[in-house]
């Protein structure tokens, strides 16, 4: 559904050029939940901005359902990390969620219905007429998610959305995202630096290298659904995957992984593209 081909981004010229992204290629299937993890500063946000059409890549391209992305496509919705700066303080929750729908010309009744459904789905129905600054950080992020959902995207791009939220709230929000994915049937691309989070949420994980960033490995996560904050994290498979990703990122893995994995590519080889499921 979404195809990233040899995406690269360089800032500056000549000697002082910063290669934020070297060359990244991977694909996402419909209804998949893909997490992108990498060490700090490896250009994850830049990658997301290029993929969503907010930034123009230096090389390569992104294709959404076959069409190249050269500007924010209407099938895509973005959720940023800094929720407090992406919500409009002069509008209520309802106003904020409604705004992107205004140009879709769906008619008042339909728009209102979508808005109320989305706000209800994130559990904020009682706060729909409040203002963002009256809500806690976690609730504000929910509003941002509701806004993305009401937009009826086919794919949701999330840039470290829970990094600025406290740990307990983070757990609730993670479960919310999973539930929402079930309910609305969206594809999700989730960028994070939190390894536990990535393993917990993902169907597949794309691990990035430090800059110039490339794809280190793509793993399949075969943990059972529905995921649970306690039960899933007690599974040995969870620990194994977590350790694997951790080591990849810490670059301590020597070539060759002993145990047979359920579908993940082993070793320190860089894989350009991995669509094969176990």
């Amino acid at each position, binding site marked *: 559904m979404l195809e990233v081909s040899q995406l690269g981004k360089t800032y500056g010229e000549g000697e002082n050029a910063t290669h934020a992204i070297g060359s990244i290629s991977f694909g996402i299937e419909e209804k998949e939940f893909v997490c992108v993890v990498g060490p700090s500063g490896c250009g994850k946000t830049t990658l997301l*901005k290029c993929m*969503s*059409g*907010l930034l123009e890549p230096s090389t390569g391209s992104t294709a959404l359902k076959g069409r190249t992305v050269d500007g*924010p496509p*209407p099938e*895509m*919705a*973005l959720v*940023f990390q*800094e929720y*407090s*700066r*992406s919500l*409009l*303080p*002069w*509008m209520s929750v309802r106003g904020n969620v409604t*705004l*992107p729908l*205004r*140009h879709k010309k769906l008619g008042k009744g339909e728009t209102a219905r979508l808005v109320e459904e989305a706000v209800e789905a994130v559990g904020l129905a009682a706060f729909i007429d409040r*203002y*963002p*600054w*009256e809500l806690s950080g976690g609730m504000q992020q929910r509003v941002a998610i509701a*806004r993305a959902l009401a*937009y009826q995207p086919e794919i949701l791009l999330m840039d470290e959305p829970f990094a600025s939220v406290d740990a307990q709230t983070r757990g609730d929000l993670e479960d919310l995202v999973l539930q929402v994915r079930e309910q609305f049937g969206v594809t999700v691309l989730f960028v994070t630096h939190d390894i536990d989070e990535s393993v917990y949420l993902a169907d597949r994980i794309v691990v990035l290298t430090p800059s110039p960033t490339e794809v280190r490995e793509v793993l399949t996560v075969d943990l059972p659904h529905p995921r649970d904050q306690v039960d899933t994290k007690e599974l040995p498979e969870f620990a194994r995957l977590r350790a694997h990703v951790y080591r990849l990122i810490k670059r301590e893995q020597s070539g060759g992984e002993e145990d047979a994995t359920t579908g993940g590519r082993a070793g320190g080889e860089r894989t350009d593209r991995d669509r094969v499921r176990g």
Partner: protein
Amino acid sequence: MRRHLAIALEIAVPIALLVIWGVWSASGDTFYFPPLTDILQKFQELWLFDRVGSDVLPSLQRLFLGYLIACAVAVAIGIPLGLNPLLRRATSPIVEFLRAIPPPALLPFAIVVLGVGNAGKVFLIAFVCVWPVLLNTIDGVTGIDPTLRETARSYGVSGRDRLLRIVLPAASPQIFAGMRTSLSLALILMVISEMVASTNGIGFFVLQSQRSFAIPEMWAGILLLGLLGYALNLIFLLVERRVLAWHRGARASALG
């Protein structure tokens, strides 16, 4: 204990100052500083409500007309300038020069071009009051959070919606700051223009009184101007508080 002292002082000091003024002016026989009681009496005679129609209303009319024109023009020009860096750089030298001209120097210009009627005064007020609002509008627009802009882009919010629901509200705190400065400028210019080229108005009245040595009347006029300045500022703050209620809330929560 200190809190109570502070509150007591807040109330006592202004009263004390007034009393001192009253006593000092009543006792001395300086011609230029008549007794406070005389001034207050004249004040009541003139402004409640004898000369309101002949002087106060024309003054206020010019003031508000010039001020509102200035704000409208400034915001209308400021937003495109704020959004377009090329345009901004191109017009910047002209703006910088025009705003640096001391307003009184423009009064003769206004007189020559528009005559000594209302048009000249309103033009002067409008021309000078444009600059603070314009510059603040530009600053407000360029200072919009990039995250906000990216959010708008990613959701395809554009055109009228972007302008009215994102750019304008986001810049409005800054615009209001400019409008506040312009308000006090408008008052000053109203007075100057009336002193130089007018046959009615509060400014005219005050100067006339001085020239005909009607000193208590002069002071009554000065007092009125002071009260006007205070009242306008207060009204502005009240309006700002209502319109920007969201802003105070957001800042308060941001600061913890």
